[in-house]
């Protein structure tokens, strides 16, 4: 399983401004790639290209060596699953139904899911600890549970590449942590995970690789520890930060702490 993006450029319509400008990277099994960058730099556009939603890009996206422009949605869905931000749904399906939708590729064109599909969906939900919510309305559960349901839906799709658009957006502190832990477990199990995040600490804590996008270009790529430094974050986000080494037992990782620049506490 591999995904290679080479010299990807994209512009909406005939506008000359490139949303993505010559983006290249590749991911392999077990990678958890955190894509960072301010709002509107083209992270979502890049995901939409990789998922085959946008087709009129320049450059190459190769899935197992095959150009995704030559694959239809059914074929892409076998290998790449999409986990959107968990928004409040318009139609309040049960959580089990939402997870079952991930099996659509395996359901006959005019058929409906059968018992084996339901068992499969249930197993995935059990795996993520949301089996007890199977009959709850997807609109009634918490944002964190919704995100886990969407992950379960992606898992039953049996795609090995999971693309997550800000999986921790709108989640409270505890749910951010729990969802990210599940995601890093999945990377350890051999899934390829590409996610966007606005929190450098998430990259430090969970990702083994990171990509910084700014103005449609990749301006830094590598392990989070090598790439994310105070200078880069100041350049991209305009915030002064201090990157601190933090030792906890045998584990050592970095933390990103914003320092004064109008952001710190007021002195009373």
């Amino acid at each position, binding site marked *: 399983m591999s995904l290679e993006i080479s010299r990807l450029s994209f512009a909406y*319509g005939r506008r000359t401004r490139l949303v993505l400008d010559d983006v290249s990277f590749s991911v392999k099994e077990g990678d958890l790639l955190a894509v960072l960058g301010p709002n509107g730099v083209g992270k979502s556009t890049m995901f*939409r290209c990789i*998922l*085959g*939603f946008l087709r009129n890009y320049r450059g190459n996206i190769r899935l197992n060596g095959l150009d995704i422009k030559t694959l*239809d*949605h*059914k*074929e*892409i*869905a*076998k290998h*790449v*699953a*999409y986990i*959107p931000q968990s928004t409040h749904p*318009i*139609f*309040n*399906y*049960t959580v089990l*139904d939402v997870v079952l*939708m*991930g099996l*659509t*590729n395996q*359901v006959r*064109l*005019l*058929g*409906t*899911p059968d018992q084996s599909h339901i068992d499969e969906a249930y197993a995935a939900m059990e795996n993520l*600890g*949301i089996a*007890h*919510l199977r*009959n*709850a*309305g997807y*609109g*009634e*559960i*918490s*944002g*964190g*549970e919704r*995100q*886990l349901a969407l992950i379960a839906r992606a898992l039953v*799709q049996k795609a090995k590449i999971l693309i997550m658009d800000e999986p921790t957006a709108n989640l*409270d502190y*505890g*749910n951010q942590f*729990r*969802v990210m832990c599940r995601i890093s477990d999945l990377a350890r199990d051999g899934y390829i995970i590409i996610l966007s995040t606005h929190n450098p600490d998430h990259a430090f804590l969970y990702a083994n690789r990171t990509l910084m996008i700014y103005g449609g270009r990749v301006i830094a790529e590598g392990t989070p520890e090598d790439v994310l430094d105070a200078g880069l974050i100041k350049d991209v986000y305009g915030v002064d930060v201090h990157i601190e080494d933090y030792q906890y037992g045998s584990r050592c990782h970095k933390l990103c702490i914003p320092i004064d620049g109008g952001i710190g506490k007021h002195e*009373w």
Partner: protein
Amino acid sequence: MVDAEPMRSPLTTPTGAAAETRLHTAGAASAPSVSDRELPDYRLRFILLILAAFFCIIASFAVGRFSLGISDAVLILLSPAIHFAMSMDVPILGDIVRILLSPLIPVAETWDDAMYSVVWNIRLPRILAALLVGAALSTAGAAYQGMFQNPLVSPDILGASAGAGFGAALAIYFYLGTGAITIFAFAGGLVAVGTAYAVSCLTRGNPTLGMVLAGILVASLFSAATSYIKLVADTNDQLPAITYWLMGSLAGATMGDVYFAGMVIIIGLVPLYLFRWRMNVLTLGEDEAKSMGINTHLLRLIVILCATLVTAVAVSISGIIGWIGLVIPHFCRMIFGYDYRRIIPAAVIMGGGFLLLVDDFARTIATTEVPLGILTAFVGAPIFAYLLMMGGKRS
């Protein structure tokens, strides 16, 4: 400067076990009531719904200006079958039927030709037409609501009703007769939706938004054209005919209408039923449905084609009947949940039954027929207001 002591209000932990499971499930904010919930018995609800619809059908034969007993109506309906069974030459079977029916046969003699004619030539086509039109409009409404991800969409969102109204007005203006009115209305509906779809294909950006706007555009164009025909129409006979047609009625339904509409509606509803699972996925929106391997472009085209076909043909035999396609899918969701595997069959049964009920009122509450479009609004609007208030309470 105030010296503030760090304050912390004690957190009440519900129970140790609950706190434990919560930690593992990322479910810090969920109420315990949603976990391990059992689904309602949908099969029982379907049986009750079917029974209610069946009772409506039987009762509808008896209701009307020419009053009939329910038993008479049932016997009149069964009489061809009875005659057929008794005329068969299979010796034992004929005897069995005769013995079984012997208590009924004396009763079976009680009707006269007028009653027979009312049941077979007036009430049966009207009842079948009501069932067909109600089923068509509510299923098309359910399908459109899912496809547009908007529960406030009705089946004429793409201009089907406006186009059909224009077609019918045109046929009335040229004195083309009742058959032509149906055909013109049907064609008008299809042309309007086809135009809306073509315009939406030329727009850029969000495809569903483009479609809604194109629908509004086409609908207003066709209503303007209808208004113009009304303006130039003969005020003695044409204008009332057009106005009355636009208000919707099943008073003129014939068996010919039923055969024509029934065929088209079955052709349209079968694919909607077959694609019921995929329609669930389509409600997630363009991107998510694609990411699960669905050819959204093709599926959307199929849904539009089928829903438009049934809407146009329903409007062509009944005139414009609002509200059914908007309210019944909401009712279905309240009783059967959001899953299209249940909503499609529920909308067929409930829509048919509801319009039949409304039509029974239409022909009985006043000395003249009340147009259906008026009644469905009078009945539909309060029900809808109630649903909206209930919906607000639930969430």
